[in-house]
């Protein structure tokens, strides 16, 4: 039954995705007819974007496979019942270390959610992504060291509090 529901959900998601894709394609086609010069700029940018995102997409596909390969139901259960400090630290660390556009992470997150990860930890992960380790020197250069340190501290705190609120809301239904 559960599997049937998951199958229905996936089919509905794919259908919605195809509709969305058709809509965006229609917009592009209209632009190709009405504003050919804008269309050519758009296509070039689309290609550049795709080229830039592909390595991240490949990385997430492999990461997803590795998680499914190594992460057994028992391990997931052990993680869910581990000390809460440990769980929050993992969510914060994963958020800080994750790279690439936010939307590329949605499928992997969806997968982990189906394995039982709660909304609180997921929100914490998403908010902690605001800290970009490789970009910290750029932030220091343009916005100053004290600003970078203060903001990073508040982001971590904010991610944690937001996660706790989401967890509470999820429990309340």
């Amino acid at each position: 039954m559960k599997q049937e529901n998951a199958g229905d959900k996936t089919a509905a998601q794919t259908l919605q995705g195809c509709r969305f894709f058709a809509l965006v394609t229609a917009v592009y086609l209209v632009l190709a007819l009405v504003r050919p010069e804008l269309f050519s700029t758009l296509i070039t940018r689309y290609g550049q974007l795709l080229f830039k995102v592909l390595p991240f997409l490949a990385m997430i596909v492999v990461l997803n496979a590795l998680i499914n390969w190594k992460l057994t139901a028992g391990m997931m259960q052990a993680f869910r019942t581990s000390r809460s400090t440990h769980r929050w630290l993992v969510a914060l660390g994963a958020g800080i270390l994750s790279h690439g556009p936010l939307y590329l992470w949605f499928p992997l997150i969806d997968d982990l959610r189906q394995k039982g990860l709660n909304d609180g930890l997921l929100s914490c992960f998403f908010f902690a992504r605001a800290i970009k380790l490789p970009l910290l020197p750029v932030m220091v250069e343009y916005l100053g060291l004290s600003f970078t340190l203060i903001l990073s501290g508040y982001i971590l705190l904010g991610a944690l509090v937001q996660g706790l609120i989401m967890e509470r809301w999820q429990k309340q239904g």
Partner: protein
Amino acid sequence: MKPSRQPAQPPSLIQCLSRSVRSFSRILPLLLAMFGLVALLQTLVTPHQLASFFSGNLFLDPLIGATAGSLAAGNPMISYILGGELLQSGISLTAVTAFILAWVNIGLLHLSVEMNLLGRRFTLRRNLLSFLFILLISMMTAITQELLK
């Protein structure tokens, strides 16, 4: 005599990889459409146009910053560089912080993708809460920075 149940064989890495590729290929139309929208936004609205939304109002600017950041898409490094420029042109630190944080945390553009994959309730709650936290953190950062001067 009942036949003894064999324990389920754990999947191999190849099986997991092929499952992962299949699962991503199912959402490929969604992702391709998403890239289309991002390219459209990046072409029609430049980061400098987004920055021009600021009014100089101390109370309104953080809200404008968070909204403009939510609309933006692209490398977060651009938001840092723009943030530095905005600070130099007299925009408040609270507004600039809200702009930078919203750039990474909220994506109005990919809201429909998030809803599709993670559910409407989770997406709305997360984004609304993030928006409020962005405003709060922006204010706290500016106050702390001022206190430490």
